[in-house]
């Protein structure tokens, strides 16, 4: 009996549904008091007055901290460009200027509001093109003093926060002999991760160390960031994770945690809790970055793409976070999944006086694939050829060598994806049945599974159940509550209900690369499988004496250790585990895993910080939309996904990720507007105007998993969660453009723009 590929109840399902689960915002410590932040009301300015005297005298107030009370330290995931509190200058709306601790949350907020603050406004850098012009003011005049967090410095300077350029030979020559050149410009807005649970943190300073309780995707990263901000070694910080109410990348870097820690120290070790209001959360969240993408393709007389140029300018916001590391993703997505000859790729990340951007499911990929797939439709239209046929003609095949030298051995899976979509929604029929104001869009992508290291300890209890100790987190995907659970249960031949996986604690569990990049089921699943293998070997060795058989003749299955092929000759795991207490001691196993980066050509580009895409997966999406010609509203009628998944471990988890990612992608394409005014402040500031799609706005996704088990993955698994968010904006924009007969090259597509296009 196998549990791989079977539907199982998620281990955290009942507590989440019943309300018993303790999320980060619910967590409380004995004697806990409350914190609040004073945040900058403007996006650029000079602090001319900051007086905390009145706030300190407010009722219930224990401490009021400013930059003067914090270590003189710079912190950052990739570049140490950020301080805990604004010093003299503010660089984005929402930037913390002071922190308060008081008996109640209301008192803390009232005291924060009572801090006497005056700011002389300065011009804000907002426009991405202008940010790079010589006359633009510098967001950080002291940019040269910033130090990379690890390794050598990378290409950057002034408002240019990072740059990755690939300039292979032959591009200009191909453009010179091109039959025609097709150019496009695409603009994408930001997207807020909009998880249900706002950010929170509880900090405790005790015995000279900091303990932080937080619902976080990447506890070890919080440890590192807090240690940087507070200028202590990483081991002086302990991070304890709690149930997460969604993250989608926004909870990968520290946020409120270092403030909670510093406030606790200031109040002599009382636990201090901070929690964002929804507006605070929205305006300070490291949202998906806005970007401008410009594409040019050289096409020969036969319609082949013989060269391409891609330029992308992405909005870093005021501080870098993870962003510089991601700039080279443009190189990996510049051609999508289609041959396009030598390709020049220029990716620039620019500082602006806006909230720092960061990771959001499908980092950088959503708008890059939108650009590439819209551009493919444009080229096919210019050539007068069918869009699908044109894609298939240029589609990557097995052994495709990419711009960075990486070779895709199995890219032929892409064609299987197109075939799976074709079987469910035959292209010719869709074209023939097309009605006015309806449109169809198709597109394809490839993506990585995040390779970062993970580790797990599997320990056998004397009752035959196991505990898994890991710093991996289940951000709601089911990767831990189903995926890793199933992997361990399968390996040990026990029911998934007998596998208990602890919440993360950096004092207890080894390093984990966090809930990001679809990595948890694959990396932590693999580490847990290796750990379970060790448990299996130990169980066999203990049982061998008891069963009077050689260890190699034993197998661990169905809750027993038994002699292969001899029915009745078996012992329960509990019996073996109890026996071990008197012979070899408690049974546990340890496993660690990391995926190496695939081979690449280091000379292919400058600023190549994410050099290649490990554990690639392949994706084909199709959308059918209907446009209301009176209101301009777009409705998605049908949505199909064919996706390479390695192997489905949990069907509910897999489908849930696909359905959820497509929903998020539909929101990105059509609903979620996050505009920045000329003053650098967000215009949408609550979930009333920042509109997430509702159930009625989203069709049930038709999903076709493609299984090609990966020999390195646990039971063949690859990553699942990120990939399906890459293409909805692309295929929906293609479908709306098809419906109206006019190009839609901006994300999101608003009813006003659709109506204007119809009326023009």
């Amino acid at each position, binding site marked *: 009996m196998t549990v791989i590929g079977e539907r199982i109840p998620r281990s955290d399902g009942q507590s989440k549904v019943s309300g018993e689960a303790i999320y980060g915002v619910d967590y409380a410590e004995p004697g806990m008091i409350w914190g609040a932040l004073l945040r900058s009301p403007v996006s650029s300015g000079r602090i001319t007055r900051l007086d905390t005297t009145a706030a300190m005298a407010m009722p219930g107030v224990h401490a009021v901290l400013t930059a003067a009370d914090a270590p003189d330290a710079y912190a950052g995931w990739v570049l140490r460009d950020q301080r805990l509190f604004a010093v003299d200058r503010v660089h984005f709306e929402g930037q913390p200027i002071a922190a308060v601790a008081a008996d109640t949350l209301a008192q803390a907020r009232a005291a924060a509001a009572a801090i006497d603050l005056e700011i002389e406004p300065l011009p804000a850098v907002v426009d991405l093109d202008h940010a790079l012009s010589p006359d633009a003011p510098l967001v950080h005049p002291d940019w040269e003093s910033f130090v990379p967090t690890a390794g050598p410095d990378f290409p950057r300077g002034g408002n240019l926060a990072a740059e990755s350029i690939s300039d292979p030979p032959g591009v200009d020559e191909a453009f010179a002999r091109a039959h025609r050149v097709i150019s496009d410009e695409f603009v994408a807005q930001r997207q807020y991760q909009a998880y249900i649970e706002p950010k929170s943190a509880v900090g405790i300073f005790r015995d000279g160390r900091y303990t932080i309780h937080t619902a976080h995707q990447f506890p070890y990263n919080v440890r590192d960031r807090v240690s940087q901000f507070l200028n202590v070694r990483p081991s002086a910080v302990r991070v304890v994770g709690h149930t997460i109410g969604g993250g989608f990348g926004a909870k990968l870097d520290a946020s409120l945690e270092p403030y909670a820690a510093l406030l606790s120290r200031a109040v002599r070790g009382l636990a201090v809790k901070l929690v964002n209001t*929804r507006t605070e959360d929205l305006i300070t969240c490291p949202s998906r970055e806005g970007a401008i993408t410009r594409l040019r393709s050289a096409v020969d007389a036969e319609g082949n793409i013989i060269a391409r140029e891609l330029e992308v300018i992405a909005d870093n916001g005021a501080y870098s976070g993870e962003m510089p590391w991601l700039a080279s993703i443009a190189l990996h997505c510049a051609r999508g999944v289609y041959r396009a000859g030598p390709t020049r790729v220029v990716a620039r990340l620019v500082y602006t006086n806006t909230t720092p951007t960061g990771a959001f499911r499908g980092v950088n990929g959503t708008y890059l694939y939108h650009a590439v797939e819209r551009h493919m439709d444009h080229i096919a239209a210019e050539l007068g050829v069918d869009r699908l046929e044109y894609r298939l003609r240029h589609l990557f095949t097995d052994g495709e060598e990419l711009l960075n030298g990486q070779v895709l051995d199995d890219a032929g899976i892409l064609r299987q994806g197109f075939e799976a979509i074709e079987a469910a929604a035959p292209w010719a029929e869709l074209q023939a049945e097309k009605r006015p104001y309806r449109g169809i869009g198709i597109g394809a992508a490839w993506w990585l599974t995040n390779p970062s290291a993970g580790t797990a300890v599997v320990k056998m209890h004397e009752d035959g159940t196991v505990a898994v100790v890991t710093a991996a987190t289940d951000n709601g995907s089911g990767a831990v509550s189903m995926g890793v659970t199933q992997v361990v249960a399968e390996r040990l031949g026990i029911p998934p209900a007998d596998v208990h996986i602890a919440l993360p604690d950096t004092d207890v569990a080894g390093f984990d690369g966090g809930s990001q990049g679809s990595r948890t089921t694959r990396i932590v699943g693999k580490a847990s499988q290796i750990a379970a293998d060790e448990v299996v070997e130990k169980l066999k060795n203990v049982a061998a004496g008891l069963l009077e058989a050689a260890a190699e003749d034993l197998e661990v299955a169905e809750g027993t250790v038994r002699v292969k092929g001899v029915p009745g000759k078996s012992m329960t795991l509990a019996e073996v585990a109890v026996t071990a207490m008197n012979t070899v001691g408690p049974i546990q196993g340890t496993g660690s895993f990391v995926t190496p980066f695939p081979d690449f050509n280091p000379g292919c580009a400058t600023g190549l910080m994410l050099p290649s895409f490990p554990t690639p997966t392949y994706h084909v999406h199709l959308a059918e939309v209907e446009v209301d010609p*009176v*209101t301009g509203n777009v409705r998605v009628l049908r949505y199909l996904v064919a996706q390479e998944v390695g192997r489905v471990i949990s069907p509910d988890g897999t489908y849930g990720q696909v359905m959820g990612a497509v929903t998020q992608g539909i929101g990105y394409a059509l609903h979620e507007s996050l505009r920045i005014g000329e003053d650098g402040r967000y215009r949408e500031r609550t979930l009333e105007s920042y*509109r997430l799609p509702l159930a009625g*706005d989203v069709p049930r996704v038709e999903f076709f998993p493609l299984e090609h088990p990966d020999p390195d993955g646990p039971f063949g698994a690859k990553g699942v969660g990120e990939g399906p968010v890459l293409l909805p904006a692309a295929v929906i924009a293609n479908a709306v453009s098809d419906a109206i007969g006019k190009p839609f090259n901006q994300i999101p597509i608003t009813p*006003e723009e659709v109506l204007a296009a119809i009326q023009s």
Partner: protein
Amino acid sequence: MKPAAVKYARAGDVQEAVALLSEHGTDAKVLAGGQSLVPLMNFRLASPSILIDINRVNELAYVREDNGSLLIGAMTRQRDVETSPVVAAAVPLLPQALHHVGHVTNRNRGTVGGSVAHADPASELPALVTGLAGELTVEGPKGQRTIAAEDFFVGTFTTAMEYDEVLTAVRLPRLPAGTGVAVEELARRHGDFAIVAVMAAVHLAPDGSVDLVRLAASGVDSVPLRLHSAEAVLAGAQPTADAIAAAAATVAASVNPTGDVHAPASYRRDMAQLLVKRAVGAAIERIGVSA
């Protein structure tokens, strides 16, 4: 989010509510269903010093026919009105409009009087009351008075009521049997505040000409609007596509929208015009079909 600290008083009847309002002055707010007021307080957009709760004033919860019109007590829950056969027979436009007010859970608690007194120019009930030439009965220290809907709404969230007056009843003229009604609304998602809504009631004479037409729009001005010019084009005319288009063409001059975070002014103006076309067309299609 949580509201600022606020005092609370419960009124047992209308007179007590009026007395409490007189006592506490302009910083007091009447709490009816609380579906608009409480969120505004939570966002700190409203910070009354005291709430005067009239939820126990049971005498204000009723629906009845009265002398050829429909009389609705101010504290009648919207959901009760929406599902009332008396309402469906007398003013079939009303249940249709209520269907667009928030979600069912909001309407279970929200009241007709609360929504009208709140005077949000984007919401449905003020527009309906205005379009159907309804009357509002209010009670204050000097007794009762009746205000025509078009005089009642004077600005965004502002009515002609004095600070010490309570809205007690909404009177709507009964629509003749066979009137076709329609609500056309543009919201980004179901249950969102409408960007623009248009309501239409149309009755045809035996010769097919329009002998009664009522048109109202919300979200297009600081007050809900009755679209008199559009009504005038249709009144007495055969309801041809051209006539409907001509009526809709007057709308741009009748409305005065402002742009906000939800939609620019020009889009609201375009939508008002297009929704009038849709609503009149839909109302005529439904003539003789019971709601």
